[in-house]
């Protein structure tokens, strides 16, 4: 039952991304050209388990405590898509900063959301669009190492947006074709343990021209 509910939720998430087609396309048309141009052309690679060396990010994208003034209370997550950073506000002018990869859907929306659900090792159901592009993809993949959604997922409100892990650490710091906000598995597990359901998530986009 639990597994089924989880599967349905993932379906909803994935389908949500597709069903929002019209609105999504409109939003995409407004999306800064630079982000489309800079998008890292990587396909999902289910089954690939990155080795620890690959999961070690360049210094700038490693999890670190940084100076960060904000009026948001400690515990708030601030996602800055143009910078490819996620900040967890600590108070005392500090934030814990994580390097992220931003998927196409991550650039669609800005504002305030709350974490509505947390999930360990989420299952993956590639959307039909992705199957068309990569017909050899499995139709379903149970959560675990090698799963493109990575080790943890944090669902945002009742939207399709989520913060998740990845089995492709090289995508951190880039705009990528699929997903929302991705962290390396070590980071998403760290973040998962620090934030409860109900946590405020502020998503900030580069201003529109």
């Amino acid at each position, binding site marked *: 039952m639990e597994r089924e509910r989880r599967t349905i939720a993932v379906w909803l998430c994935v389908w949500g991304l597709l069903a929002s087609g019209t609105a999504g396309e409109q939003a995409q048309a407004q999306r800064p050209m*630079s982000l489309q141009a800079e998008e890292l052309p990587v396909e999902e690679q289910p089954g690939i388990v990155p080795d620890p060396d690959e999961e070690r990010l*360049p210094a700038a994208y490693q999890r670190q*405590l940084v100076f960060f003034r904000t009026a948001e209370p400690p515990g708030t997550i601030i996602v800055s898509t143009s*910078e490819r950073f996620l900040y967890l506000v600590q108070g005392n002018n500090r934030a814990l900063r994580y390097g992220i990869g931003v998927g196409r859907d991550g650039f669609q929306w800005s504002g305030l959301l709350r974490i509505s659900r947390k999930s360990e090792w989420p299952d993956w159901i590639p959307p039909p669009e992705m199957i068309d592009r990569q017909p050899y993809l499995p139709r379903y993949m149970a959560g675990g190492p090698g799963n493109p959604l990575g080790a943890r997922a944090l669902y945002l409100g009742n939207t399709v947006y989520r913060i998740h892990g990845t089995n492709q650490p090289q995508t951190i710091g880039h705009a990528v074709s699929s997903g929302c906000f991705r962290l390396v598995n070590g980071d998403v597990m760290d973040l998962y343990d620090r934030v409860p359901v109900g946590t405020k998530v502020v998503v900030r986009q580069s201003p529109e021209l």
Partner: protein
Amino acid sequence: MPIDLPNPSLAALPSAAGRTRLSLPIRQPRARSRWSFRDRLLAWASLLLALASALVVASLAAAQTLTAVRERGALVCGVSHGLLGFSSVDDKGNWSGFDVDLCRAVAAAIFNDAGKVRFVPLDAAARFAALKSGDVDVLSRNSTWTMSRETTFGLVFAAVTYYDGQGFLVRKALNVESALELDGKSFCLQTGTTGELNVADYFRANNMTYSAVELASLDEILTAYDGGRCDVFATDVSQLHAERLKLAKPEEHVILPDVISKEPLGPVVRQGDDQWFTIVKWTHFAMVNAEELGVSSKTIERAMQSEKPEVKRLVGTAGNFGEQAGLASDWAARIVRLVGNYGEVFERNIGTKSPLGIPRGLNHLWTMGGIQYAPPIR
């Protein structure tokens, strides 16, 4: 939003004064009170003459540097001999870095060519004299803005392009997240520097104690720290990031987010040339405003078509802000297109896209947790 227009009375003054002066010899008054009238006329004439020449002199002085740069066909920019990320020259003589890019941006605004800069490497002792004597048009050489540097050298800092300050490098294994947790630790410090005083002040103010390992040079300090002779390496944060790269295992060390002193770095110009001062200052402000508005070297062509008033005023499709500063209307667009906005310049030279990987910190935009804040263009 009010748009500032040039003051018509001020703008009209020089030419009006000139005309009056020219017409003077023709007017030969025939009135009885000839002498007195002539006296009055002379008084008026000399007053107008003085006023006109004062204005002419003032405007000449104000335009000196810009005119000289234009006539020379290149900006002369004083930089550091070599400072990782801030200014360095490759074996082909190409300069790059955060301080270098400020000068390239000024050249882009004037010439629409970021390459029209002659870089003059200056050591710390010679830098202010070189600017004062006119050897360079602008000094962009990681110089800290202090009161005495403006008052004793007759110079003026145009902006703060980088907020630096003293910070702390420690081993991750020490498991410390804040400078306030450094009580009782041993510090490697450079003898006779302000850094030494800053640490003493900070620890006294926070009722903490420390032991000092005092060494003469940065290299000795680095070796001592890496060898475990002290727990903490304290100097300016920008320098800590560069020094960390030289450690045996950089990833085992962390730079704390605390900054305990003020070292605001920025470009310097001579006092008395307000037009030039304004151009250098607004070059930095244009880059900060561009980042805030989402205008980058990658989005500049779309920004030229933007309908947003703030963007239009920045890129010059509305208003004549560039002309008022003695530049072209698209001055800021040239800067962003050829050099980039503030964030691009930061990340490319010293941030995430550079080996230094310095977090924006205080140098983030005011809207993003930092204190970089530019007055608006309007």
